[in-house]
């Protein structure tokens, strides 16, 4: 059944290797080259919490059609160590290809120290049951019997020949090019355009021209070798050059929200190092000087703080001066920020927290994916205060959404938690060039000039003025005649401490009523989007949120092609919960399916709480590896067959 999903024309290419050995660079070159050759790209990176040595791998899916996800099975596996072949061969598609280091063929499974005991047991039993020795040779035999083509590359010998040809005998330095050599071997068997490959190598190493040229030469050397050596062993697949897609960019998920921040006018960001959120801040820091269309000298100030408590409180301090301020973190850091979140809530401070979720609790799986913080984000904090929880589904959305969340924060004067995650942060995709002017900036009710108290009809400025509109005009620190006070205590209209019971009611009402305003004003497309079959009433509605979007869309595409009647409703605004819109969107749905990357189906519980309607099926995953479209396809197929249990747990991934 799994195979039936692969009817499309996409190709999945995986490169693996020890962390620190250039897996990322090689994958970046491959992605860039394929994008330049006119293909759509979706890639994602998996790695251990480790600096050097542990197994990491990068999956890149390439297709003529727009794609939004990865799939389970691999067409081309590129390796230069034994572990990659041991770990990933079981995922190979029939007719695929493995590129391996022919010098390592006699390596035994036990000789690879980084493969942990669980994986050793799984691999051993797989090899033993097919009567193969527990060595790379055994694994390659296994692959061969599965009709997988094998390309042994003697990297060491090729390096030696290459260095002789270059007249440079500093071999030790050149071993660093093995990643690019392996990549180039895969390009040769795919008949990929050599010139574009060279250009992509130069692009990825653009800050180090000498290294770039060394790599280009090494790549060409290996390319020619493979062409010569394996001419008789043609692979059925190839990546033929087409015209590059118009107005397309290749973006990493850890850049898109940061780019959005620069456009949104975020000029102050704080952070404490944490995977996978740090990349956001580091990107901003390395682009701290801004191009401003008005000729002004612009900049964003990024501060690395001593902890996440300082990060959030410093960002709040920045926001009080009227600067659009944010902090970026992951679950453990967000846990520390919670007290201050309440302070921002009671003092009506516009604050943006980019919450890049990863698998918890505690340190959890620090470099792996999960959507486990939805209910935490919705409920974080003691006492009750308004906040907006908003989630983006993919790289492109996260750019535009970032501008929107700053608007929400300022318009409704409350903290906004922007839910992102590891799957988005460590993915790369081709998308339409970002439009910097599509989302306008809306700063809400702010006051820059305040006349002295005796010249105002309504007396002196009151930061928390009570009245019809729960949103009171906001002055910034430093505004003349705008003096106000803030306190974490309940406060008067001026901002002074009071424990008066009636004022308490008024102030609580003022703050909480802002959620009603937000819910009424936020456009429907920012609350939830329905994809697919909308006319047909007798459909299955799939509900989800965040980065599962791409895999669900790709799976649904295929299912709808096969005649299934399904639609996908992507929840974006998660708090305040858009219950009435969702009610409209699911009206007539025969079956509700909830899909999310956590144990307890957190969105399902929100839906059931707000809509008083039960979810019929849940599909969850919590092994740290993002959902692929093929496993979602399978799970939905099982549901339409009528044989699915109420809850399915997905398990794929290495």
């Amino acid at each position: 059944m799994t195979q039936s999903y692969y009817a499309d024309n996409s190709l999945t290419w995986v490169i693996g290797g020890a962390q620190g050995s250039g897996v990322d660079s090689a994958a970046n070159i491959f992605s860039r080259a394929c994008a330049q050759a006119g293909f759509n790209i979706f890639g994602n990176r998996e790695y251990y919490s480790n600096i050097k040595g542990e197994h990491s791998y990068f999956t890149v899916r390439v297709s003529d059609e727009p794609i939004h996800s990865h799939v389970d099975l691999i067409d081309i596996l590129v390796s230069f160590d034994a572990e990659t072949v041991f770990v990933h061969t079981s995922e190979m598609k029939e007719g695929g290809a493995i590129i391996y280091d022919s010098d390592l063929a006699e390596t035994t499974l036990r000789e690879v120290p980084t493969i942990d005991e669980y994986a050793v047991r799984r691999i051993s039993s797989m090899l033993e049951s097919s009567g193969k020795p527990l060595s790379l040779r055994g694994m390659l035999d296994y692959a061969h019997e599965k009709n997988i083509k094998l390309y042994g590359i003697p990297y060491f010998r090729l390096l030696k020949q290459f260095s002789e040809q270059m007249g440079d005998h500093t071999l030790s330095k050149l071993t660093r090019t093995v990643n690019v050599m392996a990549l180039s071997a895969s390009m040769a068997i795919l008949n990929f355009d050599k010139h574009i490959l060279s250009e992509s190598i130069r692009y990825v190493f653009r800050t180090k021209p000498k290294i770039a040229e060394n790599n280009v030469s090494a790549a060409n050397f290996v390319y020619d070798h493979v062409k010569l050596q394996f001419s008789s062993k043609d692979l059925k697949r190839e990546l033929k050059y087409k015209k590059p897609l118009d107005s397309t960019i290749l973006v990493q998920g850890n850049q898109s929200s940061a780019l959005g921040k620069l456009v949104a006018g975020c000029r102050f960001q704080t952070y404490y190092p944490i995977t996978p959120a740090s990349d956001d801040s580091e990107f901003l820091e390395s682009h701290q000087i801004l191009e401003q269309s008005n000729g002004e000298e612009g900049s964003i100030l990024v501060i690395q703080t001593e902890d996440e408590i300082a990060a959030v409180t410093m960002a709040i301090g920045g926001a009080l001066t009227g600067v659009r301020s944010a902090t970026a973190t992951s679950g453990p850091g967000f846990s520390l920020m919670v007290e201050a979140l309440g302070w921002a809530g009671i003092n009506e401070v516009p604050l943006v927290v980019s919450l890049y979720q990863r698998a918890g609790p505690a340190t959890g799986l620090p470099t792996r994916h999960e959507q486990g913080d939805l209910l935490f984000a919705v409920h974080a904090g003691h006492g009750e205060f308004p906040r907006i929880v908003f989630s983006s589904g993919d790289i492109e959305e996260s750019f535009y959404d970032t501008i929107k969340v700053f608007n929400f924060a300022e318009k409704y004067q409350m903290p906004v938690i922007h839910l992102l995650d590891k799957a988005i942060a460590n993915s790369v995709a081709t998308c339409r060039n970002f439009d910097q002017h599509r989302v306008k900036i809306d700063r809400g009710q702010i006051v820059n000039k305040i006349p002295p108290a005796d010249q105002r009809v309504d007396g002196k400025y009151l930061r928390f003025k009570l009245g019809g509109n729960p949103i009171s005009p906001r002055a910034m620190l430093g505004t003349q005649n705008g003096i106000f006070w803030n306190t974490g205590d309940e406060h008067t209209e001026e901002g002074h401490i009071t424990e008066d019971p009636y004022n308490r009611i008024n102030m609580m009402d003022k703050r909480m009523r802002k959620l009603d305003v937000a819910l009424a004003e936020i456009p429907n497309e920012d609350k939830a989007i329905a994809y697919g079959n909308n006319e047909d009433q007798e459909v299955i509605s799939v509900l989800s949120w965040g980065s599962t979007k791409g895999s669900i869309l790709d799976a649904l595409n295929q299912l709808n092609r096969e005649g299934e009647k399904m639609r996908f409703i992507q929840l974006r605004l998660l708090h305040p919960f858009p219950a009435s819109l969702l009610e409209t969107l699911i009206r007539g749905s025969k079956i509700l399916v909830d899909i999310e990357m956590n144990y307890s189906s957190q969105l399902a519980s929100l839906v059931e709480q707000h809509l008083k309607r039960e979810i019929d099926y849940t599909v969850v995953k919590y092994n740290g590896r993002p959902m692929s479209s093929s496993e979602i396809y399978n799970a939905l197929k099982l549901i339409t067959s009528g044989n699915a249990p109420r809850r399915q747990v997905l398990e794929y991934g290495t």
Partner: protein
Amino acid sequence: MALKFADYKTEVHNDWCPGCGDFGILNAIQMALADLQIPAYKSVIFSGIGCSGKTPHFINTYGIHTLHGRVLPFAQGAKLSNPDLEVIAVGGDGDGLGIGAGHFVSAGRRNVDMAYIVFNNGVYGLTKGQAAPTLKLGMKTKSLSQPNVNDSVNPIALALVSGFTFIARGYSYDVRHLKELIKKSIEHSGLAYLDVLQPCPTYNDINTREWYQGMGNIDEDTHKQKPRIYKLEDTGYDGRVQSEETYSKMVQAIEKSEEWDEKIPIGVFYQNEQIPSYEERIESRIPSYVRNPPARQTIMDHDGVPTGGISKLLESLRIDR
């Protein structure tokens, strides 16, 4: 029109205990602001939690009463976003040296141009007299069931090794002297730490006003009561680093900071303006930072169209070029 002391007062009822040392500090802050003619709207008092945390509500400037232990990061965030503001952070010793000690050290490493005043009384007053970080080992103030089991932290020495570039100590019952120290803290370019000995009349029955003023401190020669507090400047002490003498000035400050009981120094322990402030360090990375800090930047045109462009960045991500 010149600003007066009274201009910095609010009408908020002050509920500190009668005789509280905090009153002297409050007055000294208001007097210093008036002396320096700092417009109320340009200054912000940030505070932590506790009795001292209420201070901003009594001062007619922007006042931000933050969270327990977090006053320094709140204050630094505002100052760095808008360096035109005059930022003063205040808090108790529990707030700054207990729950907030990590921020204390990290703030020293940054040296942001602002002042931090610690109301130092050795007890957690608002929660009814538990031992605070500056209470000496073995002391048993009246609400403790047993003598203090923790040793005390030396805030002067901690500020010094953390990187504060102005370090002084005042006494809340010498308001004029304290006012001058506050002015120096504000005028100092860099992060100033001002430790203020502030008797808590309700819970600290050891380090009382009478104790500081000499009770039980009998001069061996005269057999008379001798004030414990003395002024460093009266002894010819000079804590300012002029050229290459940082190390000896630091050692001297630590030596003085260890004096207690019979002789307790107040005044400026250490000042070093040769260390670049955080703002100067940022300017070396972002040349326009001081001219056009975050708070002064415009981010959109009149129609709300963003002005912060990323065209060049996007260009580098294009694959059809």
